[in-house]
């Protein structure tokens, strides 16, 4: 019980910190936090689908779709910045719904590579669609959201991240977690206990993709432009993946912690290593998979269980070898 109180106190303090952050920090840390929040949203959204055992390499794809949709919504539908962010999310979710009906029959490596190919297809379509989507030059917004006012735009991205955290916690606390975990463990068992595997996966895929689209939409509204190469950049797949893995997959707080740590490190890395700093993410991915497949959160849990079960017992500490199945 005390654990619960401590936990909620910590969460409330963190939330207040996040809210007053623009008042205590200068413009530079604020802009770092905005980027970190976008990656956090992506990392966490990716993890939600991963909880069903489906690995997507298509983060950049749905992110980019949302970004483009929201820019087009401003220029063609005269939507305001905030509603354009929601529009981007809804658009990505709808595309995911249509595609999901087909590709969610695939599993494992077939699914993973198809999502990678999808991201590529979106990019190629937009690159070649000169009239409407701007072709290789991309699109520019007449003005960025809130005319670039720092505090409201910070709050917009914070809002997006809170929605993603809310969605993730909704999944974790509700019956959805049971369905996802059962599917990840063994689909036949899940089916035999009444879980509708296909519908569950479709829901998770649509939710994940919609959240990614919303993150992309927010980013495009903040910076005011989209181009095929920047918006569909593999970075938007790579970084969230590394962040979620480092923090620990299959839960809300792993990706949140991972993106905070790695996102802030990334900013400094860019200063010291302007070219090829992405290598660090690759190395992190490899090292985490080899030595710490359950991430920071897993590490903390292990230490916690060890402390509780007494010193002598070495219950779950060998689990660095153990896989996050």
């Amino acid at each position, binding site marked *: 019980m005390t654990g619960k109180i401590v936990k909620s106190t910590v969460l409330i303090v963190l939330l207040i910190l996040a809210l007053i952050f623009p008042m205590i920090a200068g413009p530079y840390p604020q802009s770092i936090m905005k980027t970190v929040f976008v990656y956090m949203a992506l990392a966490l959204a990716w993890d939600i689908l*991963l909880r069903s*055992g489906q*690995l997507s*390499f298509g983060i950049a794809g749905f992110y980019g779709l949302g970004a483009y949709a929201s820019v087009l919504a401003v220029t063609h539908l005269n939507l305001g910045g905030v509603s354009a962010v929601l529009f981007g999310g809804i658009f990505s979710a709808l595309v995911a719904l249509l595609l999901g009906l*087909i*590709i969610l*029959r*695939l*599993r*494992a*490596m*077939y699914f*993973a*590579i*198809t999502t*990678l*190919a*999808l991201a*590529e*297809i979106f990019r*190629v*379509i937009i*690159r*070649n669609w000169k009239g409407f989507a701007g072709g290789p030059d991309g699109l520019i917004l007449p003005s960025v959201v809130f005319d670039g006012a720092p505090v409201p735009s910070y709050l917009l991205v914070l809002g997006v991240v809170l929605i993603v955290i809310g969605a993730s916690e909704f999944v974790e606390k509700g019956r959805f977690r049971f369905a996802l975990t059962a599917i990840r463990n063994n689909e036949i068992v899940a089916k035999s206990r009444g879980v509708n595997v296909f519908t569950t996966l479709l829901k998770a895929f649509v939710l994940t993709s919609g959240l990614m689209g919303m993150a992309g939409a927010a980013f495009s509204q903040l910076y005011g432009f989209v181009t095929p190469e920047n918006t569909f950049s*593999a970075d938007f797949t*790579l970084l969230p*993946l*590394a962040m979620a*893995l480092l923090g620990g997959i299959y839960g809300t707080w792993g990706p949140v912690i991972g993106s905070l740590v790695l996102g802030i490190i990334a900013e400094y890395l860019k200063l010291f290593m302007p*070219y*090829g*700093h*992405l*290598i660090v*993410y*690759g*190395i*992190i*991915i*490899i090292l985490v*998979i*080899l030595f710490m*497949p359950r991430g920071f959160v897993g590490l903390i849990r292990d230490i916690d269980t060890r402390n509780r079960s007494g010193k002598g017992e070495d219950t779950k500490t060998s689990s660095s070898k153990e*896989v*996050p*199945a």
Partner: protein
Amino acid sequence: MKKRLIITGGAVALVLLILLFLWKPTVVIYGVQRAGLYSAIAIPMGLVLGIVHIVNLAHGELMMVSAYLTYFLATKLGMDPLLALIPAAVVLFGFGILIYRLTISHTLKAPELNQLILTFGIAIVLVQAVNLIATSQPRKLSVDYVTASAKMGEVHFGIYDFVFVALAVAILLGLQWFLKKTKTGRAALAVGQNPKGAQLVGINVDRTYMLVFGIATALVGVVGGFFLTKQSLFPAVGGPFTMKSFALVAMAGIGNLPAIFFAALGLGVAEAFISSFQGYGGWAHIVFFALIIAVILIRSFRGGK
């Protein structure tokens, strides 16, 4: 039943190819040349997937690394690239074994998800390492023999690219010989079909995996050398080939190496066909990926129940 299907299918494909050849001869020629390159890269991936049961998402990137190696050997030491690719392939063999030992061998028992993420990470590291060492500036070797061309009636076309077809055939035949005729190769096949059984009859499974991974890496190394003679190099050049290779292997069916060549033929010609329309060259990729998804889906539906 199955045989008849293959024969009819093959005959229909051949007729279509001939018709296409009469209409747009360059499409068929370039299509076949593309198919050579694609299958040369995809066959080693098929080997790894069929025996080690690992999807190596760093596959195209390994080819890229070898192409860079060849490039530096050629420019710094003045070697002909087709000679320089020999030491490059040897280095790649060692590199493949190193990658297997240090990383892949530790995730063989882990869920497939971990292996996918791991090799994805390796791909990133390779691309970014090359980016750091050689920058992202495109590089190209000019070799005079690649411009050789031929004329057929009214049509002019480059003939050097047929070297990729020859390369693919050589790799395929070489591997078939290795897998069917040599003791090690037969052991590798046995390991691919049933690792536990192979272990029981005394085959060293781990060593076999390592060797197969090394051979596959060396082969993409060779392809990388040839690739360099024709195309310009940049760190991200390998990425699409990873995806295309996987798609071809999936289409052909895991474990069916010769079929990779036919899958590549279909896709190469389809790509060349789209590219032959002025201004639509950019869509060629999409045809490829759309086809990938379609074929993978059809296969998965059929295998589903």
